[in-house]
């Protein structure tokens, strides 16, 4: 029983991480209508930026904020200078652009920072939780994931800008006709997604070490999480993340063994897509032909 509890808590902790990356995916989907395959690699890149800032002697808190700001600007520039050119291109072109970004970020990170694993600090490493069940960093991840969920949910639900963003993703032409600056809204969506990804990266790195390939597995789970929760729903992403995290740990410990953990995510992705494409909390979209 004690072990089971341990597995569940561990699952929730890793699930919170998947949830944050899934939030970035949802952010991007809600503002552009695309699933960004390069989201994980962008987050990895941002984390390296943070590592460099900290290595230069910046305090953690300042480096954190500066990285989020840099990622925001970087995401916006990516949209303005790259994605912008493919707005009316067929889907295959957009997917190829995502793949190009994936390869590019991966290669540039390997080129600048090398393949050696790097330690990334946690801001709460000096605190103790008083129980062996959960570490301070895991609690910190959970708290940040919760806070980001509230922010995002509020942003899309209650602010005009959030509403505009959803409108642009849904129908750019009509949005433009009612006076929304479509191109800037899209750029803003990319910027926000990139900064959420940066936060996710900085939360993950103390647990996994920093390395150009750190996101490959996590991205797969984040896909599964986002899809399971509903790819347009921030609360869905968090629920999906937690469910996937717990399922991964429990199935890994008791059913399929650690060797098949990745395949669990694959099975979740395929099952959700086939049987409930809108996920748990997502909205069913009906398109007029």
């Amino acid at each position, binding site marked *: 029983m004690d072990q089971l509890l341990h597995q569940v808590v561990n699952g929730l902790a890793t699930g919170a991480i998947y949830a944050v990356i899934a939030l970035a995916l949802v952010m991007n989907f809600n503002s552009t209508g695309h699933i960004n395959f390069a989201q994980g690699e962008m987050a990895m890149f941002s984390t390296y930026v943070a590592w460099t800032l900290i290595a230069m002697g910046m305090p953690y808190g300042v480096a954190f904020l500066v990285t989020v700001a840099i990622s925001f600007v970087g995401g916006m520039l990516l949209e303005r200078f790259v994605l912008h050119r493919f707005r009316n291109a067929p889907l295959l072109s957009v997917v*190829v652009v995502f793949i190009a970004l994936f390869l590019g970020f991966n290669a540039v990170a390997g080129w600048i920072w090398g393949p050696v694993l790097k330690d990334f600090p946690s801001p709460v490493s000096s605190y103790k939780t008083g129980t062996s069940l959960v570490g301070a960093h895991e609690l910190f991840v959970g708290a940040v994931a919760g806070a980001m969920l509230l922010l995002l949910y509020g942003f899309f639900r209650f602010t005009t800008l959030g509403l505009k963003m959803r409108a642009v993703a849904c129908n750019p032409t009509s949005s433009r006709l009612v006076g929304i600056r479509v191109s800037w809204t899209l750029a803003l969506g990319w910027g926000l997604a990139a900064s959420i990804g940066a936060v996710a990266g900085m939360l993950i790195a103390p647990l996994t070490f920093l390395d150009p390939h750190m996101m490959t597995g996590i991205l797969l789970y984040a896909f*599964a999480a986002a899809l399971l929760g509903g790819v347009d729903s921030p609360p869905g992403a968090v629920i999906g993340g937690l469910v996937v995290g717990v399922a991964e740990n429990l199935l890994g410990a008791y059913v399929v063994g650690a060797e098949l953990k*990745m395949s669990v*995510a694959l099975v979740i992705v395929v099952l959700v897509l086939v049987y409930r494409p809108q996920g748990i909390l997502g909205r069913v979209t009906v398109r007029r032909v």
Partner: protein
Amino acid sequence: MQSQMIKTSSSRPLVAAVCMLAILLPLFVSDFRSFQVTQILVYAIAVLGLNLLTGYNGQISLGHGAFFALGAYVAAILMDKAGVPYWATIPVVAAVCFVVGFIFGLPALRLAGHYLALATFSLALATPQLLKHPALEKWTGGVQGIFLSKPQPPFGLAMSQDRWLYWFVLLHVVVLFVCAANLLRGPVGRAIRAIRDQPLAAETAGIDNSRFKTTVFGISAMYTGIAGALSAIVLQFVSPDSFTMFLSIYFLVGVVVGGVGSIWGAFLGAAFILIVPNLSSEVSKSATGMLYAMVLLLLIWRMPNGLWSGVLWMWRAATRRPA
């Protein structure tokens, strides 16, 4: 466009010359060079397989490395455990990969656009782990993979093994490319493209979309699987870490470079994904990825039909008779 080029009488000598050159090539170059060209031919089959699905039928797959791995492993296990001769593994691989591709195509029917890309991307990410799984270790050899012996030329022919393998692969290339060209030229090809461009109109015109899409998925997996089997025979080695997600991505790079929806561009694409890493790894290990990324962006932005369309354009410009 491609079929036009073949039919134009002015291009016929050129095509004949290219064929002669391809057949005689190993006689003029070293064994190592023939081995390299053999690899390009193998990749060309895989790229063509992906192009049939993604370029012609509009089903985006980011996981074709998985079918390549399946073909390679089926061939390797047949040779290693069952003692099947290397040439006899190809039909078995073709059948297995067609069936698996067809079955994977069934859920794929319900996934449009992004979601199919996502599901196949997940497949690519999970493939190395599946191949390493202990339950399969008895056949797959686990992390170590399987070592094979190099095939000897048949009938005691006096030629090097590398040259023989070149001709062996070339034979498959010719058969598979001619089949694909014929398939795509006729009414089936038009149906496949119609489903990509206007699925609803295609359905209205009496095309059974589901049947075509799953069959194309099967054929595409079959091509890529055969390429995997040939690769296992040529390299005499399979291991889980040769089939990472990057392999699937490189196939897509090959499709985009050669030309989305162009059969013969597959050779250009395959040559690109094999030659560029050889050259760029001398600069730095990361140079390959950066170069791929830049070429992908530039091509999809400026030349979305790939290099082959550029070659055709130049050919037409050069052969145009002055009015």
